């Protein structure tokens, strides 16, 4: 490959980090920083949310579950969108790394969806008097969890990497239409779940509570990125096991 013309140089920069052998060490360097950031943000967020913030006028101290529930719900939805994004990139440009990114995101998304469902049930029991109702918000969130599990099962059940990547990408893109359904379900249907406290129109929450929730959300972001990078490194090693650069990594 020649790289003398400026045009080629730009392409080279764009796709340089798309090569698994270049991306692998780069991701490895970023992980400890992201994890540290996640821990620090969560520590500050939890201090403000659990120790400084007052109790809620209606929900007493039970509302404090939102510091776990809202960030995990947001991440569960957002990770699926990112997964669909990488899937589109994979189908359009056939880049190997983008399919692996989608596959690395899925388990973290599934864990986030599960955390959202469990903390939601633990909030529902004292507030609504029931662990679970089949209403639009809860059901669409459960569907998101199953979409993650389906994606993981599908990509792992197909041995041929190319076909596995392609099938996974298609499922991720088809399933992404569930995300706006989750988000807008509280407006579209008459649900038991309360409306959004934070939206583009501003926030109905007290400043301290909002600060704690946003800090926890940022922590969830950093954690998710770190875990995804850790997982994509394992996936890269599996895919490239027979290549020279992996054999020369000296990981024994």
């Amino acid at each position, binding site marked *: 490959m020649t790289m003398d013309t400026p045009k080629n140089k730009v392409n080279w920069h764009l796709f340089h980090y798309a090569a698994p052998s270049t991306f692998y060490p780069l991701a490895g360097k970023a992980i400890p920083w992201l994890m540290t950031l996640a821990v620090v943000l969560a520590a500050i967020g939890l201090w403000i949310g659990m120790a400084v913030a007052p109790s809620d006028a209606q929900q007493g101290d039970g509302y404090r579950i939102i510091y776990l529930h809202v960030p*995990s719900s947001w991440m569960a939805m957002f990770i699926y969108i990112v997964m669909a994004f990488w899937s589109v990139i994979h189908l359009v440009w056939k880049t190997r790394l983008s399919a692996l990114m989608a596959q690395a995101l899925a388990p973290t998304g599934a864990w986030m969806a599960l955390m959202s469902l469990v903390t939601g049930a633990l909030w529902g029991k*004292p507030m609504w008097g029931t662990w679970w109702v089949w209403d639009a918000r809860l059901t669409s969130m459960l569907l998101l969890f199953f979409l993650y599990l389906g994606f993981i099962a599908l990509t792992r059940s197909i041995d041929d990497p190319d076909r596995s990547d392609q099938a996974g990408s298609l499922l991720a893109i088809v399933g992404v239409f569930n995300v706006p359904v989750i988000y807008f379900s509280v407006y579209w249907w008459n649900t038991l779940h309360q409306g959004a406290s934070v939206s583009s129109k501003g926030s109905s929450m007290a400043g301290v509570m909002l600060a704690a929730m946003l800090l926890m959300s940022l922590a969830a972001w950093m954690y998710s990125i770190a875990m995804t990078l850790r997982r994509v490194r394992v996936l890269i090693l599996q895919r490239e096991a027979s290549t020279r650069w992996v054999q020369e990594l000296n990981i024994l």
Partner: protein
Amino acid sequence: MYWNSWSEFIAMGGYGVYVWGSFIACSVAICMEGVLLAHARRQTMRQIARASMLANLARSQVAGLQVADQHKASQQEGAQ
């Protein structure tokens, strides 16, 4: 600081079971994700180690056979 005592903090205004239950559930989930990922990484490392060992073995055997062939050829030359 909102709380007056530890017991007040633990009780969470009567919601303690649900609030701390949520914290335990999320901690378990995060630990499980970490453990599963570490396990997958270790397993992958072992596979790569095995693969590279086999590749080295095959390479050395091929090299060994070549040496043997050369030796045989030189012996035959010597006999003629």
